């Protein structure tokens, strides 16, 4: 495929009118343009998506991409990054995708501090499969698989990701594009595992625009390196009850990350095989 001036492909867009995905796409396009101005060419970016409405985003960008499986963005992205540390690898995942089917990968990616960025399109509902509850749907949510309402509280993803060892944890909102852009840029620049939970509405199955507009606020990032403060900020909202919903970068620290920086030694593969054969004789 030939890239042209615009980053947006001519693939027909099939998101519903009013979908939060448009804002995420728009913000990300601007962020890539910023990186290009800073000297990182667009071919260095690889987008990895899961399966769900969010995932169509990779078809809509004229950028390298790996359209993977439901829940599996992270292991694919990890392999790409370990194979070529020069690449900037960004996962676009959904909340059902990332927090249900692929939750173990998220925990382990945070633990190993793999240098990738995960952007979760968190609309707290399954859109493409028509409105079932996800791990971040509120208590009592009625969907087609739970007509009586769910009797479980949502996962507080911020607490979970912090507890798993992520070195960059943030929450954004699709209707606050300047903040979303700043967080995306910082996350992609961060040398380690960066997680952004992006609150967005599902225009068809879970439209809570006015709830978010009333409750979100931008938190101070003065204590961004303090883990306990980050936990407290994360605990202000439990993804279910009404309450203040902090947005911003909650935590940012530097820790040893994967891929490890190591010098590429020249090896003579056939000679090393010969040495192994001799050594085992």
């Amino acid at each position, binding site marked *: *495929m*030939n*890239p042209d001036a615009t980053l947006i*492909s001519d*693939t027909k867009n099939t998101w519903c009118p009013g979908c939060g995905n448009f804002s995420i796409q728009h913000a990300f396009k601007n962020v890539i343009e910023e990186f290009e101005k800073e000297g990182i*060419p667009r*071919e*260095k970016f*690889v987008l*990895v998506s899961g*399966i769900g409405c969010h995932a*169509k985003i*990779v*078809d809509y960008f*004229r*950028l*390298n*991409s*790996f*359209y*993977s*499986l439901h829940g*599996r963005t*992270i*292991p*694919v*992205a*990890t*392999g*790409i*990054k*370990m*194979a*070529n540390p*020069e*690449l900037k690898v960004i996962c676009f995942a959904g909340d059902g995708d990332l927090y249900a089917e692929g939750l*173990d*990968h998220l925990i*382990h990616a945070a633990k190993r501090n793999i240098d990738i960025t995960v952007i979760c399109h968190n609309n707290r509902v399954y859109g493409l499969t028509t409105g079932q509850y996800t791990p971040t749907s509120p208590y009592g949510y009625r969907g087609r698989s739970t007509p009586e309402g769910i009797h479980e509280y949502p996962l507080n993803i911020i607490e979970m990701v912090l507890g798993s060892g992520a070195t960059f944890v943030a929450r954004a909102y699709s209707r606050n594009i300047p903040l979303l852009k700043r967080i995306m840029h910082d996350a992609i620049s961060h040398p380690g595992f960066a997680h952004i939970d992006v609150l967005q509405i599902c225009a068809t199955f879970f439209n809570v625009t006015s709830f978010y507009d009333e409750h979100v606020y931008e938190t101070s990032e003065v204590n961004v390196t303090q883990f306990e403060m980050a936990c407290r900020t994360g605990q202000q909202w439990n993804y279910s009850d009404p309450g203040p919903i902090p947005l911003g970068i909650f935590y940012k620290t530097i820790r040893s990350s994967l891929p490890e920086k190591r010098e*590429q*030694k*020249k*090896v003579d*593969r*056939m000679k*090393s*095989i*010969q*040495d*192994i*054969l*001799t050594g*085992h*004789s």
Partner: protein
Amino acid sequence: MADISVLIGGKAGDGISQAGQVTGSVFSSLGYHVYQYVDYPSLIRGGHNFCIIRAAELPITAFRSRFDVIIAFDQQTVDLHGDSLSDNGIIIYDSGRVKAEGQGIPLSQIISMHQGLPVMGNTAMISALLRVLGIPWDLAEPVLRRKMPKSTEKNLDIAHAAWNILTPKQDLVVPGGGPRPFLSGNEWIALGLLAGGLDAYIAYPMTPSSGILHFLASVKEETGIQVYHPESEIAVILMALGFSYAGKKAAVGTSGGGFCLMTEGLSLAGQAEIPIVIVVSQRTGPSTGLPTYTAQSDLLFIRHAGQGEFPRWIAAPATPEEAMFLGAEAIRIAWEFQVPAFILTDKTFSEGLFTGSPDLPDPKPHELKAPVFPYSRYMDQPDGISPLLSPPHPGEIIKVNSYTHDFEGITSEDPEITNTMAEKRRRKEEALKEQSDRPENVIISGDERSPVCIIAWGSVRGQVSEFAKNHSIRLVSPLILEPFPVNAFKTALDGVTRIIIAEESATGQIDKILMEHGIVPDKLILRYDGRPSAIEELEEQVRREL
């Protein structure tokens, strides 16, 4: 022709496998071809472990049912295996722990006399074995010295003390010309992967495939590969596909249960046409089954795994040289055809030890198509194979996709594109068939003109090949199981009037593949207790069918 079998038995934790490996190395140093079978239950300490070391003047790939020497570290070894002692056989035993007829060695006494460690009992037993076989000390000493790089002098003192207690019972010939490399089947496969150009190996531990992971992790520096053990087999295969997309040659390894988790990733590799090598070492199923015992019951599963239809390649080695060749060949096939390429093996082969050729393998060169610009990842080609390109490539966009997609890799639900892409995969399968349906992919041995034919694959071929000729049987064995080399196989069966199949499964699997191609077996000899057959056991079953 000298052909000697030794059984070493003891409790898990006694270092039986290690003692066997040193014994095998000693025979290899004396110039013998060596095969070792290891039998152990799925526990860390206490159960009964044994290994069988066989040494012969010709290459061997199976064990015999009678033993010339039994080395007993515990009473159970004598009780369980004493009846299998050959007529002139001898039991060497730890006289402090075991009651038996034969030659006793007071292991703990010798060790404490020399202030040695309990594990040095192995040294005493191996020395005793060499003494009983009539190997002169001036030949034994340098071999033992080489195999005991730690506390060498103390080990040699202990070896000499054991030596002096016993008297020679045989006068074993020393062929000379050794030593040959002595490695496990897993290690021979791993060397093949390395020779084929492997860049990364990703695996989650699972018996009996873990030996590949451990071996490659131990040589990653000098061979320049990456080795990674992530959270699950699901992560394993997807990481490997990430490596592959980014231009690195990646392989994974597992057993049936782990492969179950990999099937969604397998189907992704089929749809997105991402090359990958998968080693599956079979163990007794279903489910957890017998983790440390063998089977050939995953052939049809591997052949059909994954939703949808896509080409794949499956090879089954039976000798160390084949393992090394096929390991390299799997990488060539996977990358040239952009398909999943399998090495299908089993516990018997994976964890068995074999002396093999010291010569470097000579892998076929990879013939990858040059990318055409402007680049389309799924560009249509007569043989269905689009040129590969990995990111970053200035000015080009490289998209792979698990959805049905167009030539650029963009999702499409168009019926025409759906057909085009299905036909593209079909044409790749035709190209792959052309590669596999060649005479060299069907092994013929034994009495090559006999009208009676036995068909076996993988490690069972190793057992049959040792007796086929004695009974004027033609042995025909596919090296490649998928795409099945139909014409080459039918040619190999020319003039055959009776077909017997030997396989380690309860229902028969390869016969189903043969019947798809109109080859109807007359008799199935099936074994499904998790244990490989001794040569004589299978020979007797076959003889009854003649």
